[in-house]
């Protein structure tokens, strides 16, 4: 086989695919063929590079050039210039927003500089649909090592020493979980991979499954060996068709290569994996609910204990781990617990993947060592706040987490620090909010979510969250009272104390944390009937400032209901009776004369 001298890696993650990355691949292939270079250049569809903000991404090896926002029609240019003449297409390079310089290499981009990729190590590096590429980057070596050189107990010991904690939200030590499941004697045991990523604004598990599915399969087999299970299930959202497709290919290939199935590495150990589809229920991220759903029933949680480690799937001992947790395991086995232990902080070892989104310049998937500050993630990696606005809060942990105010950005990211300020690590969603976001409205958004997603089993969660939502609704409509704020706290604490599962125990967090850090904003809503960020429609008012208005008529032109009157070059006035508070005039005014008092 002839060796390719150039590899064009094109991101095939969901984000880039929805921006025509498949068409780019086709265009590149046909262009290469037209020019007679198809034997010299390999076009590879990879997993997510993480820099979703500027997708679709193309990375060129071995020159290490990183192209962004590529369109199918750019294929011709890339082939004619880069492939044939070795000239970099400057227009497609990334430009650092802070010092306006084009950057050629991925490693030089500030987005990647502070990152350390363990779980995402192969995303963007290999073709996820080709098992040999995974094997080339040490894939299945960890499984081979475990099966030929280690006893199950030693594997568990190694995991315990590494200090790896579950990446799905709870942060329970993985080695300990394996040990508990291993201790329970039973002929049948199960490994389940929790790929029911339901947090709104989180997509790291999906990216791992799309970009490096084999790492999860390998780790599940290792876990199976450690606890004595021969069967694994991946419980995955049906809304992730691409991840399902890649997993199916990966499982089939692994079976063909004898890396899943009977008597792996001639050790007598059998292991196989099956997919189970979720059907859109947030509560199924909770492990007992997930098990009920794998069994084909309603995904309602059970009381713990008994833990799944004792009585799990089909009443047998079961170990449930999250996708990202699994992705960390092969490198730990190969490089050792000491190597892993050096990364991160005292009680939170290793790295964490975050889905950075919201009002930040570089939206994308980032993996950083634990202990890095929020500030570094948002300003260094994320490139700061969009449109030079002011950062107001960062939400971590999704509907179970809380909002961290701007003055607490120096806090290091780890399980315990985040908990101490009323938020949590969660699965890794990180939403940045700026001065235009209303915190009351944000907590209402999350409550709307939990109200709908509550399975209904426990009264405090089913009815309590509905009441919380109703109170917040009242406040945003301008009908709230100061007593409502106390009610939110009392009710919130009560729901946390009396709910059965993680959903109810954490659902009031968004309300409680915003109440603590943004109390003044709540006060403004209930006392002055005013929404400072101008989001809550019912409380919005628009006026035109007498000093600033120059009478340019821009506002009157865009007003959809013609409620702005005034002669050209004279001050304009908004008629509040007709105004529908759409904000078009606010956006249109170039003199900041339209104000939200």
């Amino acid at each position, binding site marked *: 086989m002839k060796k390719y001298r150039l590899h064009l890696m094109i991101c095939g993650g969901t984000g880039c695919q*929805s921006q025509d990355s498949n068409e780019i691949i086709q265009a590149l292939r046909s262009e290469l063929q037209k020019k007679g270079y198809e034997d010299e250049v390999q076009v590879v569809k990879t997993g997510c590079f993480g820099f979703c903000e500027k997708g679709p991404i193309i990375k060129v090896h071995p020159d290490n050039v990183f192209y962004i926002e590529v369109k199918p029609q750019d294929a011709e240019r890339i082939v004619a210039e880069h492939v044939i003449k070795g000239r970099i297409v400057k227009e497609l390079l990334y430009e650092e927003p802070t010092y306006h310089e084009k950057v050629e290499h991925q490693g030089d981009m500030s987005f990647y500089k502070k990152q350390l990729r363990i779980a995402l190590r192969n995303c963007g590096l290999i073709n996820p649909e080709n098992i040999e590429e995974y094997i080339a980057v040490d894939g299945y070596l960890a499984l081979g090592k475990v099966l030929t050189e280690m006893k199950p107990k030693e594997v568990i010991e190694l995991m315990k020493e590494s200090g790896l904690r579950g990446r799905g939200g709870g942060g329970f030590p993985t080695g300990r979980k394996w040990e508990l499941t291993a201790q329970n004697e039973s002929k049948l045991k199960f490994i389940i991979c929790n790929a029911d990523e339901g947090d709104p604004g989180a997509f790291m598990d999906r990216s791992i499954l799309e970009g490096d599915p084999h790492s999860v399969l390998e780790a599940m087999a290792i876990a199976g060996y450690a606890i004595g299970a021969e069967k694994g299930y991946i419980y995955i959202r049906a*809304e992730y068709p691409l991840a399902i497709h890649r997993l199916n290919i990966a499982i089939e290939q692994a079976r063909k290569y004898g890396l899943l199935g009977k008597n792996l590495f001639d050790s007598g150990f059998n292991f196989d994996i099956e997919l189970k589809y979720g*059907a859109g229920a947030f509560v199924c991220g909770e492990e007992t609910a997930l098990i009920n759903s794998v069994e084909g029933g309603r995904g309602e949680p059970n009381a713990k204990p008994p833990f799944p480690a004792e009585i799990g799937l089909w009443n047998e001992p079961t170990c449930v781990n999250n996708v990202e947790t699994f992705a960390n395991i092969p490198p730990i086995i190969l490089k050792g617990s000491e190597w892993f232990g050096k990364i991160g902080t005292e009680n939170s070892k290793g790295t964490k993947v975050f889905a950075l989104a919201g009002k930040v310049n570089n939206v994308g998937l980032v993996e950083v060592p634990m202990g890095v500050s929020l500030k570094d993630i948002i300003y260094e990696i994320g490139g700061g706040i969009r449109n030079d606005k002011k950062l107001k809060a960062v939400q971590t942990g999704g509907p179970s987490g809380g909002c961290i105010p701007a003055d607490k950005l120096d806090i290091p990211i780890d399980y315990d620090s985040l908990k101490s300020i009323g938020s949590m690590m969660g699965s890794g969603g990180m*939403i940045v909010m700026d001065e235009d976001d209303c915190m009351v409205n944000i907590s209402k958004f999350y409550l709307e979510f939990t109200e709908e997603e509550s399975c209904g089993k426990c009264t405090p969660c089913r009815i309590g969250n509905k009441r919380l939502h109703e109170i917040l609704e009242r406040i945003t409509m301008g009908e709230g009272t100061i007593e409502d704020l106390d009610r939110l706290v009392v009710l919130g604490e009560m729901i946390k104390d009396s709910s059965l599962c993680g959903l109810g125990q954490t659902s009031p967090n968004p309300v409680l944390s915003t109440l603590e850090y943004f109390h003044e904003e709540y006060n403004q809503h209930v006392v002055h009937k005013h929404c400072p960020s101008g989001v809550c429609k019912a409380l919005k008012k628009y006026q035109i400032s007498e000093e600033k208005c120059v009478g340019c008529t821009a506002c009157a032109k865009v007003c959809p209901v013609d409620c702005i009157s005034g002669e050209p070059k004279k001050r304009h006035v908004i008629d509040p009776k007709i105004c529908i508070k759409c904000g078009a005039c606010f956006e249109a005014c170039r003199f900041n004369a339209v104000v939200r008092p």
Partner: protein
Amino acid sequence: MQHTKLQKKNDRQQVLAGEKYEALQQFIDQLEEKEGALIHVLHKGQEIFGYLPRDVQLYIARALGLSGAKVYGVVSFYNYFTDKPRGEKLINICTGTACFVKGANLLMEELEEKLKIKAGGTTEDGKYTLNAVRCVGACGLAPVVMVDDKVYGRVKPGELEEILNQH
């Protein structure tokens, strides 16, 4: 005359439905284990029929040896399953947090007004079904609107008209 025409149409529909049931039955027959397969079968059922009407639910219940109540309990529990028919085109507006802070709710309001339906509803002519979906994971493109499989990113309220016109 009118009567026979209608009769023919009904017959044809029944044949079509029959084929669908056959496909479903085939799928169930090839399952290795029927225990725990309910959600899997419901996914297939929805794929074949487009939705899960009462008859299909009962059919599945019988085929798997479950009660109709159990099947309905599962169908109504999960967001993904629906027992109402969908319009020709499915419009999904992502309501994940990233899209929310970038104005997904404004898009929803505008479409609700434009199509004269609420989220979850289908237009009278059966052309569009409008849904709010959980995070589709394309947060880099927020706010996101999907029409069937086509994803539109960074959508502004004014652009919705044009998007609808394309479908």
